[in-house]
């Protein structure tokens, strides 16, 4: 038998789309594992996905913050991406994330689930600098 464990097509297509966008975007699989983020997100975080690789559920939630208005870490279960993948519904929030170089960015994040005839495949989150009306402004 073939030995390649194929990613679900919906994740493949999502990654291909995200790769072509200048809007920062994250992709998690149905288990919440961070399986991809695009170049724009890498710029925001200070590290390309190719350098980081996949990151386990709950682990990625603490790597970059996020922090609330008081600077306190936001509970993993409350992150839009987690709500989307666990509850199967869209979610939106404002918060601050920290990049590898220590810089903080105030962002808005919208996440939506990837649902198929066979159930959930994961979720996508896109980010905007808070207060911006034009995404990354590019």
């Amino acid at each position, binding site marked *: 038998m*073939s030995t*390649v464990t194929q*990613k679900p*097509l919906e994740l493949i297509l999502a990654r291909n789309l995200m790769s072509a966008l200048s809007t920062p975007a994250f992709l998690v699989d149905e288990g919440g594992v961070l399986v991809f983020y695009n170049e724009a997100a890498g710029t925001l975080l200070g590290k390309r996905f190719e350098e980081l690789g996949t990151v386990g559920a709950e682990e990625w939630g603490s790597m970059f913050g996020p922090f609330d208005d008081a600077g306190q870490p936001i509970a993993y279960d409350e992150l839009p991406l987690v709500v989307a993948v666990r509850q199967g519904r869209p979610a939106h929030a404002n918060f601050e994330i920290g990049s590898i170089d220590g810089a903080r960015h105030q962002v808005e994040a919208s996440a939506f689930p990837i649902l198929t*005839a066979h159930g959930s495949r994961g979720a996508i989150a896109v980010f905007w600098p808070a207060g911006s009306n034009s995404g990354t402004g590019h």
Partner: protein
Amino acid sequence: MKVKLWGTRGSVPSPGPETIRYGGNTSCIGVTLADGSMLALDAGTGIRCLGLALPDEPTRLHVLLTHLHLDHIQGLVFFAPAFRPQTEIVIWGPASPEASLRDRIARYISAPLSPVEVRELPCDVSFRHCPESEWEIGSARIRAASVAHRGPTLGYRIDDGESSLAYIPDHEPALGADLDTLEADWISGLGLARDASLLICDGQYSDDEYPAHVGWGHSSTSHAISFARRAGARRTVLFHHDPLHSDEQLDRLGEVARRRWIELGGAAETLDLAVERAEYELSERAPSPLQAA
């Protein structure tokens, strides 16, 4: 496992003197498993001739549909075994949130497009959504997976003893992706095609034609070659010929494909352009012509 190509053309039947060598019938592959079980992969107009070649006796047939575009189902109402009460036909295909497989196929096999309705077919016909997990038909294990095309579309892998067939006739894995560098598990269809004895894959457009057809769900010659290289299949057949391609154009396209294949280290005899009525017998594993990447 024996494989016979009954229809190699994509999109629309294209009969005529200019397509007589490669064939004008749309997608259909006949597969005879080691235990004698019969499968038809897709039901384009090629399935009409497959039906005529089958013996007129009690038969159980499995028709595995990749998707429901007309060039993959048009032959169903001209499939002689469907009009024999002693025939049992199981039709497999992709699930859709929109409607059942039976209801979606019935849009074609119903008035005013068809003189018969599904319920009027004399054979014992049933419809099944392909499961996400592997299943068995006769001596084979079957696997279906969604692949990059327009609308819900499957590719199939059939493992029968030591031989394996991967069938991905409508496929655009290079859409937004670099097939030469992307990780294998992120390439649409590669899990089905990896190390197959025979890979039948989409190669509809020449490289010059592809830029005007990005997103149409089909592959260029170079993309098909790259996909085959990554798959490491023992033999590759480029399939789903464009209806506008004459035999002479396909000859030239084949030359280009083989040159590229050889440049990548492949053996010329392991790459074919699909020819209607061509037969392949898959018996045992042979060394791969290219190292899978």
